[in-house]
Each structure stands twice: as structure tokens, then as C-alpha cells.
């Protein structure tokens, strides 16, 4: 259970527990050169997490659902690339939370305990604490969290923290038919990534590499890319992701105000509860 030791908690000043020996951080390695874009990971994610997105419509691409939503915590992004010699590449990237070592969402979040980072590196949203302000979206350099229409809370991939906590691999890893998604100690994943990069270089991908961007302190979800020099080819994966300076500003200067604001919010919520009763979701809007 030590992986559930919280190392970092949004809008909180109390210190993290330190008694237990820290477990080595974990990571998921997504090897794009082994991914066949079958979307089994999307389905496994839906099934494990009890999510069912709407049945959409084809608008001219294989990406379905078209974007991440509160119900789709991971989606495949398909990019057709023309090469100079007239041939092409079809790059398929599994998109979702990167679980940054230095998570911008957590830094930006004003709601105490709505976003936590465990000792193993997983960044998790604790939904009951979420106030739906959307600051996590502003804080995220990868544009991942989505606010639900249903309950006005933010959602994203949890890296199956509930599974990892009991020694299971995330649902997407378990289901991946080609082993393109691997999970383990970050150190082991970096080693495996380096091996795959060597293989890709032998196959002619001179610029193959592991995507573990340092601008966010490295990530706990990493990619093996055939073209690590051009991450933008993969449906605009950021070349050098960084937390927005506004978030740092917010954390530095506005921090004293934060405590006050949060206190007011809690008090406000308390009075709201006393006077109006618990918030009820407007079911009619989501009926059918």
C-alpha cells in the first residue's frame, strides 16, 4: 500500500508522510513503433473505469472519440505523414495523462486535496474534492483534463492507481496485444526504452528516442518515438512542455490569497449546504 503515500497534495501546506521507505517510481512506456492502433486500450480503460462515452459520428478520421472527454481518458491520435521520398508513415499515438514528475495541474489546483501525487509518481484526481474551476486545464502543458457536464468535476487517466496499488498493471497495459504498452519501475522502463531505441536505429530511424520531457521534471508516462527530434509529428506532442509561467506566478504571488479563498469557498459551501441542501445533478439534461 505504500504507493498510496501522498507525496504532494494540491493547495495544501502540511508536509507529506515520510516514515515508509519510498518505493521506486513507476512508469508506463508506450512504444509507438509497436502500436497497431487497435484501441483495445481505449476499451479496457472504459471497462475498468466504468466509463461509456457517447457513440459519435465519423467525421473523416480514425480518431474516435475525437478528443479526450470526461468519459474517454485515453484516445488514439492518428497522423498521416508524407515523407520526402514519396512514401508515408502512419503514426499512431495513445494520448492521455503523462503523469508529470512536476505536475502543472496539481500546482495550479486551488482545491485542497483535489489533485494528489503519490510516492510512486502517479498523479491522481480525487474527484470529491474537485470544485470544477478548470485551473488544472490551464496548468497542464499537455491539454489533458476535461471537465464533465454531468458533475462539473475534472477527469483524466488515473494510471489505474487502484490497480497499481494492489500490484496489478494498468488496464491498458494488461490488454495491449502487442506489448506496445509496458509498465514497471521507471528505471526499468527507461532501460527497455533504450533497447527499443537501438532496435529502431538499426531499422533506419536515426532520430529514435524516448520521450521523457525534462521541462516537467520527466514523466511517468513515456513514449518510444521513431522521430524523437520531431515530437510534433505525433499529433502535436509538445516538443518542450513546460508549466505555464502564469501557474508559477499564481503559486508564488497568489499563494497567500489561496488559503483565504479556499477558506471562503469551504465556508460558502457550508452555508450553501445549510440553506439549499446537497447539490443534485440535473438528470433531465443527461437523460436518454
Amino acid at each position, binding site marked *: 500500500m505504500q504507493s498510496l503515500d501522498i507525496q504532494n497534495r494540491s493547495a495544501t501546506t502540511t508536509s507529506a508522510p515520510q516514515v515508509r521507505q519510498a518505493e521506486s517510481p513507476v512508469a508506463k512506456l508506450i512504444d509507438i513503433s509497436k502500436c497497431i492502433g487497435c484501441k483495445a486500450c481505449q476499451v479496457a480503460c472504459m471497462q475498468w473505469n466504468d466509463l*461509456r462515452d457517447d457513440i459519435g459520428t465519423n467525421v*473523416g478520421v480514425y480518431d*474516435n472519440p475525437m478528443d479526450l472527454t470526461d468519459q474517454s481518458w485515453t484516445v488514439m491520435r492518428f497522423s498521416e505523414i508524407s515523407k520526402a521520398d514519396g512514401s508515408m508513415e*502512419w503514426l499512431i499515438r495513445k494520448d492521455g495523462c503523462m503523469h508529470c514528475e512536476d505536475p502543472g495541474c496539481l500546482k495550479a489546483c486551488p482545491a485542497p486535496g483535489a489533485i494528489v501525487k503519490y510516492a510512486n509518481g502517479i498523479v491522481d484526481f480525487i474527484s470529491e474534492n474537485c470544485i470544477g474551476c478548470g485551473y488544472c486545464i490551464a496548468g497542464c502543458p499537455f491539454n489533458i483534463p476535461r471537465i464533465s457536464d454531468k458533475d462539473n468535476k475534472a477527469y483524466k487517466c488515473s494510471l489505474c492507481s487502484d490497480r497499481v496499488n494492489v500490484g496489478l498493471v494498468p488496464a491498458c497495459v494488461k490488454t495491449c496485444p502487442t506489448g506496445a504498452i509496458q509498465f514497471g519501475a521507471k528505471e526499468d522502463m527507461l532501460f527497455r526504452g533504450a533497447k527499443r531505441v537501438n532496435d529502431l536505429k538499426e531499422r533506419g530511424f536515426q532520430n529514435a528516442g524516448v520521450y521523457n520531457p525534462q521541462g516537467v521534471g520527466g514523466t511517468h508516462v513515456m513514449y518510444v518515438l521513431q522521430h524523437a527530434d520531431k515530437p510534433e509529428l505525433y499529433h502535436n506532442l509538445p516538443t518542450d512542455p513546460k508549466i505555464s509561467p502564469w501557474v508559477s506566478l499564481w503559486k508564488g504571488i497568489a499563494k497567500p490569497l489561496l488559503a483565504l479563498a479556499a477558506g471562503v469557498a469551504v465556508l460558502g459551501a457550508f452555508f450553501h449546504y445549510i440553506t439549499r441542501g446537497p447539490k443534485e445533478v440535473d438528470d433531465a439534461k443527461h437523460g436518454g
Partner: protein
Amino acid sequence: MTNHWVDIKNTDLILVMGGNAAEAHPCGFKWATEAMEHRKAKLIVVDPRFTRSAALADFYAPIRAGTDIAFLGGVINYLLANGKIHKDYVKAYTNASFLIREEYKHEDGLFSGYNAEKRSYDKASWAYEMGADGYAVVDETLEHPRSVYQLMKAHFSRYTPEMVERICGTPKDKFLKVAEMLGSTSTPDRVGTVLYALGWTQHSHGSENIRTMAMIQLLLGNMGRPGGGVNALRGHANVQGITDQCAYTEVLPGYLSAPTDADENRQKYIEARTPKTLRPNQMNFGQNFAKWHTSQQKAWWGDAATKDNDFAFDYLPKRDGAYDILAIFERMYQGKINGFISQGFNPLAALPNKKKVSAAMSKLKFLVVIEPLRTETSEFWKNFGDENNVKSEDIKTEVIRLPACCFAEDPGTFTNSGRVIQWHWAAAEPPGEGKVDREIIGTLFTKLRAMYAKDGGKAPDPIQKLTWGYINPNHPTAEEILREINGRALVDVVDAKDPTKVLVKAGEQMPGFGLLQADGSTACGNWIYSGVWPQAGNLSMRRDTSDPGNMGNNLMWGFAWPANRRVLYNRANADLAGKPWDPTRPGIRWTGTAWAGIDIPDIAPALGPDSGAGPFIMTGEGVARLFAPGMAEGPFPEHYEPFETPIGTNPLHPKVVSNPAARVFKGDMESFGKSDEFPYVGTTYRLTEHFHFWTKNVQSNAVTQPSPFVEISETLAKMKGIKNGDMVKVRSNRGELKAAAVVTKRIADLECDGKKVYTVGIPIHWGFVGVAKTGYLANNLTPYVADANSQTPEFKAFLVNIEKA
């Protein structure tokens, strides 16, 4: 598969052609990625589309749909012209050295013996020259002008790289690169494999597509070897099982050819199907035909099958013509069939030319649909707007739906593509009124039998006397049936050399097909499955992963037919002296006294290299056939255009354009379109997000691929003013469909015979029932014509036009 799924990891080169393994077989494709990671294997994809398999390929070459024989024929020409063949293998293990009769010839697309009126061949001239000793004549030097080797060389010399480019549209340099990569496996220390599926079968020359590849694998010495073979990736989890057990009328279970009107009695039937030994000292395993067939008759009719009544031979129906599925629906269309029971089958969606299939079903008096879910077939009589615009009041067919169950609600076996029979357990009870299929059929049978008992009828014996010894006659269990398929001894089976030695006691399960008898003393439902349930128990339940040799053969996992053998023809894995061609990749070897190794030898264990017995024991000649007289359209493959051809001619022989031996029903020739009105190549296929027409009933699948679409190239889109995501209408001479356009770089524009050829890709998964967005059946468009040998419809290459809807 001649090999099996796990064995793909042992290869050096994977060709994916006539299939899309990554997309249609994602779980099995992992073995390709294993070979790439751990053996540095290379992956080649040849396809009209840049598929999800191509996304991982080391090399991709485009090809026009329906021209695979031209491409592969070009490869054969390349291999022969450049000496890239495994010569020792070819000489010893194929019929390259055999002489062919003088009368045989091929001229301008027609082989000797053609009858234009019947659209078929008299194959008398496609035969070996026979010597005075009664055996086929061979020339070990391969120099004789009438040797298969020389005839083959001459035949394929027309398939130059330039001709390949002209027919297939594959740029010459890309074709040569593929040929060179394949040629690299001609040395004994390198092995290549090929993974194919419906992209090769669904053509009017589908069987010949596969045969051409088999010839390449033989020339390269890749058959029978770990990491080699010709590997058919089957679509449904158990489609290999239904093929083996035989859900068709043309063959009996275990690929025993079914009798026809010409088979007057058992003796004539068996004689006609027992191959002659064509070379000295060959095993000619097919000579055991009488044992397999007699044991089957005993399994079916028990004590009622006796020597005196020809082992109930007359209880079998005798075919008076073709009864493949297209022939059945043609009869239905002509009003010659009253009733149809459709079980585990959605013919309205699965057969070509939906209009014709719908009209055929409208002529039935009754249609019984046994399915767990509603299907397009069960709802064919209902109007679903443009997607199924029928007049219900005009359809008199009574449709009866019997709710069945899904596979996970019923125990039994699956046989996978690698021929491994695996038991599966029921995970849940069928919901509502759903019943397992065996109970539905069992109850139907006992009722029919009771009606015959009460009312009599024509030929009651085959039904009245059928063996039906199940504990609950209305509901035979899967265990009872698998035991029956395996077979048992009816009296003690004794050693032929020592009759005092009892090999199998009366009533015991047979240990395998080796002891089946032709005298009625053994019963066996399907000889190739014999051994799956011996006296020791149900071997399909085995889940032992031990793997001596680390080659993935896993002999203790389930049971592979035949005889638990994992790689077919594995004698060819070793050289003439019995040593593996590649010692690092051993299959079986000759120990000095017997064949042994990490697989079950595909040859009699004591038949050593000195015996001269060849590795291809199912042929009378003991070797594999580069020249194959059994094929309908010629002993050598020849390129024929699809029946709807975008170039309107055959560059090899303009007078013979399409397969001259493919069957075309009256009226269907007129339903074919021409390229002036329908200039683009239509081709249908599957997507990884869906499974046929089933998963459109499942929300999570529907979320990932929600609604119908077709794929076109950027050039064609521009020409037609179609933007990505626009609704388009695709028409053929038989019907139309509407869908969203996916405009993509992944569909190549080709130039064939001086003409630009554009392709319209049509995924099949939508219909007018289910939770996904509804759509038109793709088979509104497809032509009613099929492969000349297997009668598999030509779904992969036809003509369409497209416009903005």
C-alpha cells in the same frame, strides 16, 4: 496455418499480403512483433491500402486489388531468374523434376482441355508422364523441357518486373525490393513466413492466389520449417473448427470429399478418393481413406452401418450439383427452396449482392434464424428506410427467431488458426429464453425423428437410425460430442502382427487416427480430431505451457490436429540426411533409428532418410506440387482480372480477361458493371475496432468506431469535390450506399496499363440493426461471383462510382 501462431516468433521475414494481420488479428500479430524485436525479423506489407499493419512495416508496397497472382508470379520469375531458390529442397521435396504429358499446354490464358460452354476444363492432359513401372517419370537434372521446373520457368517468364508494374500498378523498384527481400530467405539459415486472410481468398481466383504463394515458399525452402509456412489467419474464433467439422455440403467432416450422384456405391466412392502412389516408397497417407470414412459411418449410424449395407453408404445424400452457399442462394432465388435454417450466419450481410439475397429470401415459405441477437437477416423483411427499403407487405416469408446464446454462455472447443483445439468453459447462463445451440438442434432432431416414427416418410432410415445416444437426447453436451468426434473401439482392436495383443479394448476411446479400421470395428466422427479425447481424457483442456526447445510448440497445451502436430510437413525441416537445415531452429531430426525432436514427426517415425519417402505424405508422390492438376483453372497460376476490371483487359492475354473457369450464374454476367460507368476499384474490408457484424451491438466497440465510412485518396477526393467527412454515395451496378468520406494518403493512386486507377475502400461493419449508428450493408455493392475452387465470393475487387451525396 501450416505452422501456428507462436511459431511466427521464429521467423526472419514476415510478408503480410492478402490480409491485414495487425488490424484483423491483433492478438496473434504480437508474434510478428516478437520476431521483429527478438530475431530482428523484417516486416513487409503489400496491400492496396497503407494499413495498420503497414504502420509497423519495414517496407510497404502498394498493389491494385485483384492482381496478387501477377505480383507473386513476378516474384517466382525473379527467384528463378536470379537463382534465389533453395535448390536441394526444390529438387527433393517438390515435383520440380516430374515430367508432364506432352499434350499439356498453356496458350494465351487458356490451358489445354478448355470447354468454353461449360466454363471448365477436361484435366486429362494436366498429368504426369507415367513410366512402364507404373510410377511418374522424373528427371533429376531438371533440364527436361517437359519437367515441371522448365515448364514453370517458361510459364512465369512473362511476369517481368515491367509486367508486374503494368498490371499491379506497383512501382518496379518497390516490387523488386520485395522480391529481393523474399529471395533472401532462400538460404538454409534463413526462413520467411507469410500471413494472409480474406484479402487473398475473396477473389474469383482466390485459391490460386494462395497457391502462388505456396509455390514461392516451396522454391525458397520455407515449408515445414519453424518460422516458415503459408499461414491462413482465420476470422472467427472457431472458423477453423467449423471448417474441420464441415458446415458445408461439399465435404464430410475431416475434409473427406462428399459423395455425388456419380458414386454408385461405397466401393466406387472409396476408389475414386483413394490416391494412387505415384513414386516408389511413398507413404501416400491418403490411402487410408476407407478407414476414415468407414469409421465416420460407424460413428453416425452405429449398428445400422454394416458390411452388408455398404456401411450405410446410401444414407448419405449424393450431390446432383453444386451446393455451396452461392449455389444455395441461387436455387432460392429461382424459387426452388422452401425453407432455410440460418444458424450462426447473417447471409443478408455476408453474401454478395444484397438485392439478390433479399429477393431470394423473399421467396422462402419460412426462414428460421438461430441467433443470440437480432440480425439483418432476421429483420430482412422490415423496412429500415433507404438502408433496407423493402415492401414488407410483399414478403410472405414467415420468419421464426430462436434465441440462442453467445459462445461465452456455452462450453465447448475453439480450434484456432494454428489448428490447436482448446476447450472453453461457459462464463454465464444464456439470458432470458436463450438456449445453447445444441439444445435447439437436439430438440429439433428428436421431434423430427418422432414425426418420422409416427407418420413415416421418404427415406426415414438416415434419421431413424442415426446414432443419438446422448444422456439427454434433447440436449447433447459438448463433452459427449467431442468424445464421439474422437472415436472409440467397437470391438477389441488388435495388433496386425500379433493378434493376441489388444491395442484398444472395446469401448475405449481411440488414441488417434492411426488405429482406425475400415472393417467397421472402430467409430470416429472426424479422423483429423482423433486423439483429442483418448482414454486419458479431454486433451483440449490442457493448459501446460512447458516448451522444450523454446520454439513455442507447447505440445502440452490443448491438442493440435493432426496427431498434436504443431508444424505440418515438418519432415521438410530436415535435409535429405535427416539433419535440420538450420541447426539453430530445429523441428525434428533423424536420430539414426527414428524421427524425433520438439514436434510430432509428420512422417512414420521409423521411415528414415534412406527410405526415399518424401515429406509431403498426403500426396501420392510424396512431394509438394509446384504443378497442381487439382485446381479448377489451371495447374500453374495465371493472372486473371477481377470480373469487374478497371482496365477492361488483361495485359497478358486480352482475349481471356477473367478466370475462364469461374462459375457465373445466368443473369449475373449482366449485373457486372463496366469501367466507363464505374471507373473505380471498390474493395471491402474489416477494421480492428469491430468484429464482422456482431460488435455493432456493443457500445464500447461502437464508441471507438461509431458510423459507416469509405476511404478515398486525396486525388480522387479533389477530382470529385469531396471534402474529408462529407457524406458520399458509392454506386455499383447492383446497388448503392451512403457513408462519410475519409480522405486519406493511405490509399495510393496507381497507374495500370496506362490508366490511372483509384480505389474506394469500404469497411463492412455497419448495418441497419445494432447500437452503433446504422448504415447500408457493404454487400449492396458486391458482385455475385466467386473463386472457381472454393466458391468464396469476390468481395475484394469490383467496380464502383462515387459522388458527393
